[in-house]
Structures are given as structure tokens and as C-alpha cells.
């Protein structure tokens, strides 16, 4: 039987690097933290734009059922994705949103809401496209499902050659933002 199964959904619009973000978290869990991590993705015909989502199950034993119907952790990087996927989040779950792109309704059912201006931070780093890695850093700091060293290792292993430093910087910014938020609140 599956033990300590954590279900995660990472969502946004096509082009935000949602799938790569999930891939890095999964790789960190599977190859560096030595857990089982199953990533599946659902996508429409559009390569850019449109709501897209990656589903991740992290477990200490073999993942049998591969999909995520009721995530415990939901990351929404766009309003459309938030509108579509927020109702799936379980009571008491963790909701992570892109602060400037998602206007949430008041949190209920004990849902913990955390926000990060990932796009703005990425722009400060000079490359908007690393917003997904900023989000991965934030996720690592607040979600407690993958180790921070594991994620650094997975990033180095997964991003295009020559962009490792930029991406690790993006990770640190997101990670620090999450740590501060946890320690000091908003």
C-alpha cells in the first residue's frame, strides 16, 4: 500500500515553464531524496497560453494511482489556472499563488494561502522566463516535501547548459522569499 502519499498540482499558462518546474521537483524527490515521484501532465493542443497543469505524486513507496484529483498542494501561476483548479484543493491544503497574476477569493476550509511575486523577482534577475524556478525555490521553502539540496542538484541537472547560475540564483531568491514569509509573515 502507498505510504505518506503527497499529491501536488502545479498550474499556470503554457510558456511559464510549469512542466519544467514540476519536473525539477520530481527529479529532486526521485533522484536526490530517493523517494518515489510520479509526474504526469495534461495539456491541450496549444503550445502557448491556455491553462496547463502538471501533477505530481511523491511517496515513500511505489506510486500506484498516478493522477492527482484532490491535491494537498496547489500552485497557481495564472488566474485562469486558479479559477480552474482551486476547487480541487483539499480542505486544509496549501495554496501557492503568483502574487501579481492571481487575485484569490478569501481562503476558506483551513486552506493556507501563500503568495510570491515570482514574475517580478524573475524580471529583477533580468530574465522573466526563470519565474518557474523562483516558484520552485519558494515551493521548496514552504511545502516541506523536497530537500533544498536535492532541488539545487535537480536544477543543475535539468536546465539548459550555461544557465545554471542564473537558475540557481532564481531558486535562492524564491527560497529566501519563502523562508522570510514563513518566519516573519507578510
Amino acid at each position: 500500500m502507498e505510504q505518506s502519499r503527497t499529491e501536488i498540482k502545479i498550474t499556470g499558462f503554457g510558456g511559464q515553464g510549469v512542466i519544467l518546474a514540476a519536473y525539477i521537483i520530481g527529479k529532486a524527490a526521485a533522484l536526490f531524496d530517493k523517494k518515489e515521484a510520479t509526474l504526469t501532465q495534461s495539456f491541450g493542443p496549444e503550445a502557448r497560453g491556455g491553462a496547463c497543469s502538471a501533477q505530481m505524486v511523491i511517496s515513500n513507496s511505489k506510486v500506484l494511482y498516478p493522477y492527482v484529483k484532490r491535491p494537498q498542494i496547489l500552485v497557481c501561476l495564472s488566474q485562469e489556472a486558479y479559477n480552474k483548479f482551486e476547487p480541487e484543493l483539499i480542505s486544509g491544503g496549501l495554496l501557492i499563488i503568483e502574487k501579481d497574476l492571481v487575485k484569490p477569493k478569501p481562503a476558506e476550509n483551513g486552506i493556507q494561502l501563500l503568495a510570491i511575486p515570482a514574475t517580478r523577482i524573475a524580471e529583477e534577475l533580468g530574465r522573466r522566463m526563470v519565474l518557474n524556478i523562483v516558484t520552485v525555490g519558494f515551493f521548496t521553502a514552504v511545502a516541506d516535501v523536497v530537500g533544498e539540496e536535492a532541488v539545487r542538484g535537480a536544477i543543475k541537472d535539468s536546465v539548459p547548459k550555461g544557465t545554471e547560475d542564473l537558475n540557481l540564483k532564481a531558486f535562492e531568491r524564491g527560497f529566501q522569499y519563502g523562508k522570510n514569509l514563513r518566519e516573519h509573515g507578510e
Partner: protein
Amino acid sequence: MKADPKGVLTGEHYLDGDFACAEGALAAGCRFFAGYPITPSTEVAERFSERIPEVGGIFIQMEDEMASMNAILGASWGGVKTMTSTSGPGFSLMMENIGLGAMMEVPCVVVNVQRGGPSTGLPTMVGQADMMQARWGSHGDYEIIALSPNSPQECFYVAIEAFNLAEKYRVPVFIMMDECVGHMTEKVIIPPAEEIELYPRRLTNSPPAEYLPYMPEDDLVPSMIIAGQGYKIHTTGLTHDERGYPVMTAEAQEKLVHRLINKIRLNADHIIHIEEEDTEGAEVVVVSYGISSRVALAAIDEARAAGIRVGRLRLITVWPFPEKRIRELAPKVKAFVVPEINYGQMVLEVERCAAGQAKTILVSHGGGDVHNPQDILEAIKESIK
């Protein structure tokens, strides 16, 4: 023989099933890939196009799936291990020349990452409804081999097994994946090359003057040649004799087609690869394959917790169907439960082999999603009533 280290990406990877399948093929020595893009199998072709120039092989994107299938047959006669991959509509287009591959006895591997059908259906979503097409899709009587992996790790190993079977039995071998497994990313461990055992091409020892291209050996499989080495063979999709020459008679048809069938049927025990757990003493046995076999496990765990003696039999080889084993189990169990993402395909085989000695219950799903394990659990409970 051992695998050539050049094609073996030894190490721990985080790969989807399509990529893992391509890596398995490269590890098995596949050095020629022809294909046409189609969701959800495209990543198999993409992986090949990226990797194969660094391992000494050829990738070509053909104009359609008929061309892809023919290109791998032609290349296989050139002495190279070959593969193509496709989904749904492309699999239908390949059928014509899968028959040619069976008739000419050409080793090759065809990957079908199944999506929801019929027709264009659900291009990006899961299905398991091409199982009978894999068996019967080309016209005429023939036998093929088909395998069905249930994880990216198994996609890697099944690809190697597929090549070994294709070479050993000189037959097109299908890897019947499904979109869920194909697009699922998990840890894949690729072993060192020296741990990968390969079945080499059955090349003849006879000199050209004595060689008959379709004279079978003891296991009913003839030995092969490589084009360009002076054997000057003829081979055809027409019914032919041991020389490969067309012979339009009922006798020639009986001799050839019966052998094509028997080389698989009579060797079925050597070919079939199934996984069994707790089938002895079980009241109900869940027979499943591909992604459904994983989802079923979640249901089996719960049924066992509820005190039901559930065994499971997983088809890694789906064709030839392990009919002997089902016949052995049928008198000992109350029921077989068969979850599959179609409205009843492999379940017909289970039912045929159970021959009324045990109930056979289908848990169907139309595709676009995997089963809810609860539905399988209900069927298990129902089956022992």
C-alpha cells in the same frame, strides 16, 4: 551477446515512458528509426532524433506511417535493428506493412502509445483500445508478439525484450504502451551495458549457393542474411516457398502460413512473460496490463485488507496470450476481474480460456482517464458473491 556501451545511458534518470522506451531501444542496439510525429508517441521519435547521431545510427522522419513502417522493414534487411513509433491513427496506417513484416519475417519493433479512439479520438489522453488491433489489425492470418509496460522503468526493459524477441522469432514486435505510461515521468535506472543481454540476428552459416531464405530451423524460424553480401535473395509479400519465390497454391499457403503461426504458438512458453502474485489459493484473480495494472494494485490492496483472497496476474506479454496459465487457474478460482481502458478486449481472451469454469468480469473504461480504483474494488467484491 552484450549490449554495445555506446547506446547505453547507464545511470539514474528522471524520464517519461516515451523517452525510456527510446533509451531501451538504443541499449538494445537499435540504430535505425523511421517515424512520423503523432501524439502521444512523438517523444519517442524526438529522443531518437537527438540521441542517435551520437551512437552511430540513423533517424529519418518519413512522410507518413506507411512509409515509416516500410522504411524500417527495408532497413532491417540491411542488417540493422529498427524501430518506429506511433499512436492511434498512425497504428492503423501501419497495419498494411505490419502484414508485410510478418510475411517477409522481418525483425523490427513498433511502438504504439495508445490514446483514446476511435478515429482522432482523444489525442492527448489515455486509451487501451488497440489491443485487438495489435493482434488482428493486418489482413490475413498471422501471429505477432506484443508487450505492455506499466512504468517508464519497464518501458526501458520491455524495449530490450521486444528487440530480443523480434530477432529470435523474426517477427514485428509491438510495444503496446498507453498515453499515461508514455507521458509519465519517473525514476529510470539504466544498468551498465555488460548487464544487458541481447539476442543477435540469426544470420545464416550457409554459403549463398546453398542458402534458402525461408527454410526453417528446428524452432520454425529461418535464418537471415544481410542485403549486399552476395546472397541475391528474393523476398515477397506473396505466398512463397523456401526459396522465397511466389507460389500460388493452397499447399504453399498451408505450408507457409501455418509455419508463421506455429513459430509463435509452439514457442509461446518461451515468449510469454507474465507477473503473478498470490494466484495460488486466490478466490479472484485480477488480470491486467499497462497502466490499468498499477491502478488495479491500489484496489487489490484494499480488497485484501477487507479479507478477500485476491491474486493478480499481469500481462507483460499480451500477445501471444498466456492461455495455458488462465486455463490452469480457471477451475481453481471463482472469478477473473479484468480492468482495461476499453469496452472489452483482452477480457474476451480471459473469458475464452476460462471456458465457463470461472466468472469473467470486465471493468471497462472508455478512455481519457484511468480507472477509479474504487470501481475495480467493487468488481472484486461483486465477483466473489
